[in-house]
């Protein structure tokens, strides 16, 4: 009696493992198919996640076949937690991932991750530097990288600018300024760091609430903000746009 109950519970545990692993395979593939992978990781690594998704399904299927044939190769590893905990944890996480869509980072996180600090602190090294003949073709992150290499704001005075990003209301700046920002990632959302440029408006920034996506056109000027000279966009037009499918910059 006791033995059969033990057998029963170990069978349940074995199946729990299989279900948890399969659920993760399903989660990875569903993120891929619904285009949500871009919210989490750099496109460079999409392939790996997709292969892993299929791999987990195969492992799950092979394990399931072993159990169906009822000769489970039952071995228990050294475990830190009681049996079943880890697979339940994996399964619960996968279900959560399937049910709740991850949200891209927004202005709150940008402030928390220090959008107002010099880039040196947010990211130890600039990655690429593209000299661009047409300043208005630079994206926001191109601007920030260019500025990182040659930080004198006056060098860019009068250049045309056209960038897209979301609005951050930085508490340190006067009401007439907002920060247009994006998150840049190199690997996954864990290392997302915010980049941004101040935008000088004709009116109060309350017309553009935080997290609104805008296309800002204007020209570059130098302003004295937070006691330092900063490259600032003098806005000519601000056009609301819809949030891009892939909100991060690379």
């Amino acid at each position, binding site marked *: 009696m006791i033995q059969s109950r033990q057998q029963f519970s170990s069978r349940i545990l074995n199946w729990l493992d299989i279900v948890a692993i399969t659920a993760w395979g399903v989660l990875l593939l569903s993120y891929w198919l619904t285009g949500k992978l871009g919210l989490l990781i750099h496109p460079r690594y999409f392939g790996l996640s997709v292969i892993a998704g299929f791999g987990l399904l195969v492992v799950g299927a092979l394990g399931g076949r072993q159990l169906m044939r009822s000769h489970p190769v039952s071995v228990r590893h050294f475990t830190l937690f009681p049996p079943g905990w880890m697979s339940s944890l994996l399964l619960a996480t996968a279900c959560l991932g399937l049910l709740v869509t991850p*949200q891209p980072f927004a202005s709150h996180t940008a402030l928390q991750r220090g959008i107002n600090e010099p880039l040196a602190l947010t990211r130890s090294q600039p990655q690429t530097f593209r000299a661009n003949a047409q300043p208005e073709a630079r994206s926001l992150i191109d601007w920030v990288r260019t500025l990182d290499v040659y930080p004198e704001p006056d060098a860019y005075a009068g250049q045309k600018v056209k960038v897209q990003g979301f609005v951050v209301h930085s508490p340190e700046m006067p009401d007439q300024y907002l920060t247009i920002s994006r998150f840049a990632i190199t690997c996954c959302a864990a290392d997302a760091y915010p980049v941004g440029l101040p935008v000088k408006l004709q009116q109060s920034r309350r017309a553009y609430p935080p997290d609104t996506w805008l296309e800002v056109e204007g020209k570059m000027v130098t302003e004295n903000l937070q006691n330092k000279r900063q490259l600032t966009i003098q806005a000519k037009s601000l056009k609301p746009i819809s949030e891009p499918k892939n909100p991060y910059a690379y």
Partner: protein
Amino acid sequence: MNQLSSGFTLFLSLLVEAIPFLLLGVLLSGLMLLFIDERKLIAHLPRNPLLAALAGSSIGFLFPVCECGNVPVARRLLMQGASAPVAIGFLLAAPTINPIVIWATWTAFRDQPEIVVLRVVFSLFIATLIGWVFSAQADLRPLLQPAVAAAIPQSQVPPSTPESSRLLQSGTFLLAQPGKPIRMDTTELQATLVASSTTSKPLSDRLQLLVANTIQEIRELGGVLVLGSLVAAVIQVAIPRELILSLGQGPVTSIIAMLTLGAVVSICSTVDAFFALSFAAAFTSGSLLAFLVFGPMIDLKGLALMLTIFRGRAVIYLFALAAQLTFLLTLFVNLQIS
């Protein structure tokens, strides 16, 4: 609410990025366990203690295992007659010195290649040095758990007779005595049996074992990965940024914080680079290195496993030596390089 949603995104992104590497690491280590004959390997290792320590540290390349897999392998190596420098070098370096871990670290720190290089160099250096130090103890047995000590062949020559495998079996069995609720032996036993009779087992049996092994490893390591990602996400969103920065920008405090985190968060070395990455914005390079070098060598989970090989005293030596060396090397990085 904002906090919660960005914490959730961070948590999921760590998992989605890390799971492919975890799967790859588990599959490869399973393959190696089933298809490499360790005894032949041991027979070819150098005898000079320093070279042996270096060789032991480098054979991690043949066994891409996390820190949870390397303890059973190190124990088997010892029982099969590998010298102390080999076993200790392997124990400390194998989780880091292997292709999957290096690839994952490169993935995470692509724009700071010095972290990838220094991680490998420091791990090799520390593991070799500690392995070499332990070679001063000619007879390792007083430092080992009695059951392991009893299983070491007297001659220190790799055994090849059938007796030795019976000896191994009894040695492994003894460890599962009452009062030691550690049940790792079945897998290990199987792996040993398989490894020692590679020719006798049909391929299909070995593949069955591979599948079973893969499932268990994914469950255990994946579970710890989930917990580790949770810790990373909570630290990132719940602790005020000023506190993290004041801790993370100090050359000494940042290293101490990351050493502690490395010891507490028992995240698998294949994916710990992604965990470290989430701290890259706020912490010094030296402290990230400290986490990446020290974490795989010793952590809470590894400690419990190490106590199945060594007596407490030896584990304390290992722990103290590894922590001090990591601290000094990474402090040097903080003060001189970055």
